[in-house]
């Protein structure tokens, strides 16, 4: 029971991070039908930005309140990551819109290589460890010397994820921006005819996805306390798996998929073998796509003859 509870808590934490990244994939796929391969690396850059600004605030400016530092870091990371993603869309994807379908995918893979190697060159190939933050834990249950605990960090991650998802949900469901976005998703040509600025809407989709990836990056850094230039790929692919599992194009699906992937990964490590946890994630991706390509909450696609 304790082990189960512990894995559940860890899984939800990890799943929140995957879910936040997955939204970026699912929104971009929904609106322009493209797998934004560089999104995982955008998340990694966000974690680096968070690390740099956290250091700047605590060591250079001597800010002592970790919470305050974290809030400032979160805001800066969101702004700068959005700027980065906006620029990438502008430079590497927009010129290819409406051309050969593979071109944007190749361009995105190229951008992913650029981002991770740029960080490697600019910040060095070594791991970047931060001093531990919020070290405390709450013991929920204890028996036979094994305790199920929830750390302050985990609570923080849950709260931040929940608040930002709610804000994001409001943005997409209730504002004109969200309406424009959903219109473009349905039919881009028609939306343009009705006076929606499609280019701007697509840019904003990238910006929103990146802002959530920045939240994920900051939380990832807080949780693990370390980041490396190669950390974009695996979480990126897992988040994409989450988006697919939940039904690509569906926002609640992305969050649900993220939680499921997080849970599967932690339970697999907890009960079976930590070695094969990534194999489990990739196998699920393959199985879902093969047998249930519309995902859990997605719309089925009918072959038109």
């Amino acid at each position, binding site marked *: 029971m304790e082990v189960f509870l512990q894995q559940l808590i860890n899984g939800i934490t990890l799943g929140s991070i995957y879910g936040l990244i997955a939204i970026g994939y699912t929104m971009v796929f929904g609106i322009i039908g493209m797998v934004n391969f560089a999104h995982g690396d955008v998340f990694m850059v966000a974690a680096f930005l968070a690390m740099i600004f956290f250091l700047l605030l605590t060591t250079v400016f001597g800010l002592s309140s970790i919470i305050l530092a974290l809030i400032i870091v979160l805001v800066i990371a969101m702004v700068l990551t959005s700027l980065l993603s906006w620029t990438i869309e502008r430079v590497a994807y927009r010129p*290819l819109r409406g051309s050969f379908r593979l071109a944007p995918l190749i*361009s995105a893979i190229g*951008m992913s*290589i650029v981002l991770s190697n740029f960080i490697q060159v600019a910040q*060095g190939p070594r791991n970047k460890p931060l001093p531990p933050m919020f070290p405390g834990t709450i013991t929920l249950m204890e028996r036979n010397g094994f305790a199920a605990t929830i750390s302050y960090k985990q609570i923080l991650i849950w709260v931040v994820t929940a608040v930002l998802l709610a804000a994001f949900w409001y943005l997409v469901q209730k504002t004109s921006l969200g309406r424009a976005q959903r219109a473009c998703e349905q039919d881009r040509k028609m939306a343009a005819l009705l006076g929606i600025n499609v280019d701007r809407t697509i840019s904003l989709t990238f910006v929103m996805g990146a802002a959530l990836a920045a939240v994920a990056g900051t939380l990832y850094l807080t949780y693990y306390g370390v980041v490396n230039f190669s950390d974009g790929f695996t979480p990126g692919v897992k988040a994409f798996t989450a988006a697919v599992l939940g039904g690509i194009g569906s926002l609640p699906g992305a969050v649900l998929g993220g939680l499921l992937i997080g849970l599967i990964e932690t339970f697999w490590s907890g009960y079976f073998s930590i*070695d094969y946890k990534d194999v489990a994630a990739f196998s699920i991706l393959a199985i879902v796509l*093969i047998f249930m390509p519309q995902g859990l909450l997605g719309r089925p696609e009918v072959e038109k003859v």
Partner: protein
Amino acid sequence: MAGATRKDTDGLNAAAAVKDAILAGVIALGIFGPLVGLKSEQNMRNELVLTTRWGLVAIIVGIVIVGRFLLTTVIWPTLRARKMRDKPAPTAAQIARRSAIAKWFPSTSLVFLFLYPAIVVSLVGFQGSLKWVDNFGIQILIYVMLGWGLNIVVGLAGLLDLGYVAFYAVGAYSYALLSIHFGLSFWLLLPLAGILAALWGIMLGFPVLRLRGDYLAIVTLAFGEIIRLVLINFRELTNGSAGISSIPKITLFGIPFDASPNGFAKMFGLPLSSAYYKIFLYYLILLLALLTAYVTIRLRRLPVGRAWEALREDEIACRSLGINTTNTKLTAFALGAMFGGFAGSFFAARQGFVSPESFVFMESAVIVAIVVLGGMGSMIGVALAAVAMIGGTEMLRELDFLKAVFGNNFDPDQFRMLFFGLAMVLVMIWKPRGFVGAREPTVFLAERKSISSSLVKEGHG
């Protein structure tokens, strides 16, 4: 009056261009400021500290501003003007020249490829030739072969496979394990590795047959990663991330390349040199690559090849014409995988060492990039892309003079993949269809005419 108006708009344009360039500079500052300007490093106590490099940031931002300004004021208008101007119809001489190039380029480059080691040796001697034959010749040819192998799947059949490196790994590990444990020779294991890889191709191909588009790409990516992760974790067999070392070398039909009395050098009374082995390997991979090309070119003109291309164009129409699309896709997967397996076993023999590190997703991405940058389906294009991308990035290793510019800590090798990625993006923007976009028909009634790339479909994968 008209002149004044034009001047006004020019002035306005200039002002807008300056504004635009400054905006680009601000964005560059926002992105590069923290990531380049503030470098995190571990100090003696293993704590991260920041060091600043504002000079470097200033240079980068400056380059962005000037670059953007030139782009909007000079480069784009010129390009646009060139596009607007009606292209004069190519003269007879131009057409003749073009078709002469198209006709002679493959055979001349083939002759060059066969003479390449001799040219290198005559220029820099045996010892000096090592680097040129190995790093450039062999390395590029491995990617040419991989590109041509994957071209069957991606370029002809239109199935985007992002896990091609898995078959390369199967080939490499097949040779490594079977030669070490059973002492079998390369010449026996080469076809065996190809067959094993082809079987894996069918096994992995079967479940993904129903998938289309990006989904196919992602599942193949997942399969590639699963195989790599199994190689890492199945330590009993593969020795995990440590890899397998001291894999036997290839012999020239029983003659080993070593210092023993019956070795190659002694046998032919030559001075000992490791260059012979490299040159031998060069010719081996050249022949393997040419085998791939030969088989592909032949198959393209056979019903199965036409069915692949038809599949890329329209799968439903294929089914309505009685083509078993399942088998057609599987043959493409199997053949592509087989050539990947050949290349893999060659790779293992050449390195003498394999580890899962060599089979990461990035390798698959590089191979796919070569196929797409080359122009899907075009053999020449794929070869050119491999030369440009692999040769180009290998060249970066040679740029030691940059150390004089950027200081001794500068390691151009680090920038290799960065430039590779940038090149991928830029080539896609410049030529989304790749270097050679036009398609050559496989058969003709009266006259062979190239087919414009805008009509050729890219497949649903």
